[in-house]
């Protein structure tokens, strides 16, 4: 077997990009097949239960649903290449026009929840690790354990009842775009973001804790302590970057569960995001919208994980191969 020559950084990025594109193509086919396998059809929904089979068949033909699936997939995929997600069967509007205004809501929700989860989980996990032989560190571990067991929709409903209905601190539901002012926008997002990030914080804190415990046993951490850095200083200065490798991987993987959670939280708080659009489209068997939204979510997850992969070389110098370097 010829020796594997390690690729240079640009080549590796290019290779990773290739993997990403291939995954998107495969994902589009899977999304299409799953959507097509949904029982029921849109023509029936449009015409109602009393419609004659002939009328339903005629409408199906009009929508192009009578063609074999490879043909339908081909037409849809050709559209994707031009950033055209097709038209809704129900409204006749381009799917993209329905998706774009809702993208902002979901992006804010998921992005802020991830940031909040990191802000909570990194200190909490590090604390739990450093103080693991003391009561407070044990408490931090227990807290993240409990957080794992709480479903986000239940937390959302509870938070809504207490902080919106009882105390009236925040609106119970709805959404105001950022363009309408920061205050109202933020007030509408507080409860959904907190509810969504709670579980994520708990999961992440457990990874941060074990990554930190690992660093505490590393020789370079001992070297840093022997050089005069105090426990937490040594961890932040020499541990954080080493830990970030495993934490970043988990964050990438968590994004998928976060998107799934967002769909539910959007329903609980009546946020006009992609999740609501998707649930409505599924109920109405508007497959073109379903396919469009799901594909978008899949691409987002794949893109984030591709970025995670590419960030490794940035975080860990051992993965870089500089030009002209001889070992």
């Amino acid at each position, binding site marked *: 077997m010829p020796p594997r020559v390690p690729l240079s950084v640009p080549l590796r990025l290019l290779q990773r990009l290739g993997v990403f594109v291939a995954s998107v193509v495969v994902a589009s086919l899977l999304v299409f097949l799953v959507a097509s396998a949904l029982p029921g059809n849109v023509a029936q929904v449009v015409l109602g239960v009393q419609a004659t089979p002939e009328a339903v068949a005629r409408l199906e033909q009009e929508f192009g649903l009578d063609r074999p699936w490879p043909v339908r997939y081909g037409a849809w995929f050709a559209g994707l290449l031009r950033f055209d997600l097709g038209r809704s069967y129900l409204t006749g509007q381009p799917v993209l026009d329905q998706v774009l205004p809702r993208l902002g809501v979901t992006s804010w929700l998921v992005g802020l929840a991830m940031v909040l989860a990191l802000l909570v989980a990194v200190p909490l996990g590090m604390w739990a690790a450093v103080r693991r032989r003391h009561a407070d560190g044990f408490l931090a571990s227990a807290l993240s354990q409990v957080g794992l067991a709480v479903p986000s929709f239940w937390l959302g409903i509870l938070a809504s009842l207490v902080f919106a209905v009882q105390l009236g601190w925040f609106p119970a539901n709805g959404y105001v775009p950022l363009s309408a002012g920061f205050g109202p926008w933020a007030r509408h997002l507080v409860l959904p973001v907190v509810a969504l990030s709670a579980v994520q914080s708990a999961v992440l804190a457990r990874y941060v804790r074990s990554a930190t415990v690992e660093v505490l046993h590393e020789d370079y951490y001992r070297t840093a302590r022997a050089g*005069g850095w105090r426990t937490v200083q040594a961890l932040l200065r020499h541990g954080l970057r080493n830990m970030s490798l495993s934490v970043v991987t988990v964050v990438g993987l968590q994004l998928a569960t976060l998107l799934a959670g967002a769909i539910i939280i959007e329903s609980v708080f009546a946020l006009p995001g992609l999740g609501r659009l998707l649930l409505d489209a599924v109920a109405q068997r508007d497959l073109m919208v379903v396919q469009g939204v799901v594909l978008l979510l899949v691409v987002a997850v794949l893109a984030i994980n591709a970025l995670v992969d590419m960030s490794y070389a940035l975080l860990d110098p051992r993965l870089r191969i500089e030009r002209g370097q001889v070992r």
Partner: protein
Amino acid sequence: MTPLLQVSDLRVSFGRPRREVLHGISFSIAPGQRVGLIGESGSGKSVTALAVLGLLSETAAVTGSIRLAVPDGDGPTGRQLEVTTATEKQLAALRGDAYSMIFQEPMTALDPTMKVGRQVGELLGLHGHRIPGGSRSRVLEMLREVDLPEVGRIADSYPHQLSGGQRQRVLIAMALVNDPVLTICDEPTTALDVTAQAKVLQVLDRHFTQRSAATLFITHDLAVLAGVVDVAMVMLEGHVVEAGPIREVLADPWHPYTKGLVATSRLELARPGERLPTVADHFDRSIPVQGLREVPVSWEHRARVPGRPGGGA
């Protein structure tokens, strides 16, 4: 003169139920004194070293006393810090500054994500040392002092780009950059090949001589010790069993265990075809080990376990 380090009746135990691994050892190190600590794996050498700088894990229970002299910029202040009761902040101020440590395993002892020049340089700022000409020039000077080639390139390298011997010399540069009064060397040459070993020993010896700095040099290799230290202690199963000037200990070992160590290190006496000597030829492990109460502060006189005849087990 106040000793730099004064250890009395130091006992360390781990685990539950408590298992004692150091059974009350006592010794002291004066400024500029070079002390060797010999013993096999598990004899308690590294535990002693880590205890001195308060670097043992939280699970260790330490009793007895460890006192470090607290110098300021100009020299000794007469103040002492009791390590066993000191705060992390007090200890951190001494570690890497007046007291430093070099470890056994150079391959994993450097942060893999940071350039080595920065790892050396940050210790200057940490202890508040202002360097005329900037810390970069001091880092390069230090790397030159440990005989590294092309210091500019090395300073800008990550640890994985350097060899084991180079990494150990970077770690030595880190330990010596703030001009410590005492450096603990915990088997600094064990993981290195013979050429790299010689280089490291030469660098350390030169530094201690130039700065008249003290060292506690830990090893299981007698040949290494003879060239570096003035006096030595022999450790066995958590006891100090013999101590004195290194030449005398090597030329005329008293304790059966030391006799065994010396015999096994003199391979030139072995004849081809003959079985090599082992420590067990001289020393019966079934006899419980008894330790010295105290190593004399002066180190001038040899100390041995009382009631034990000089020869035979």
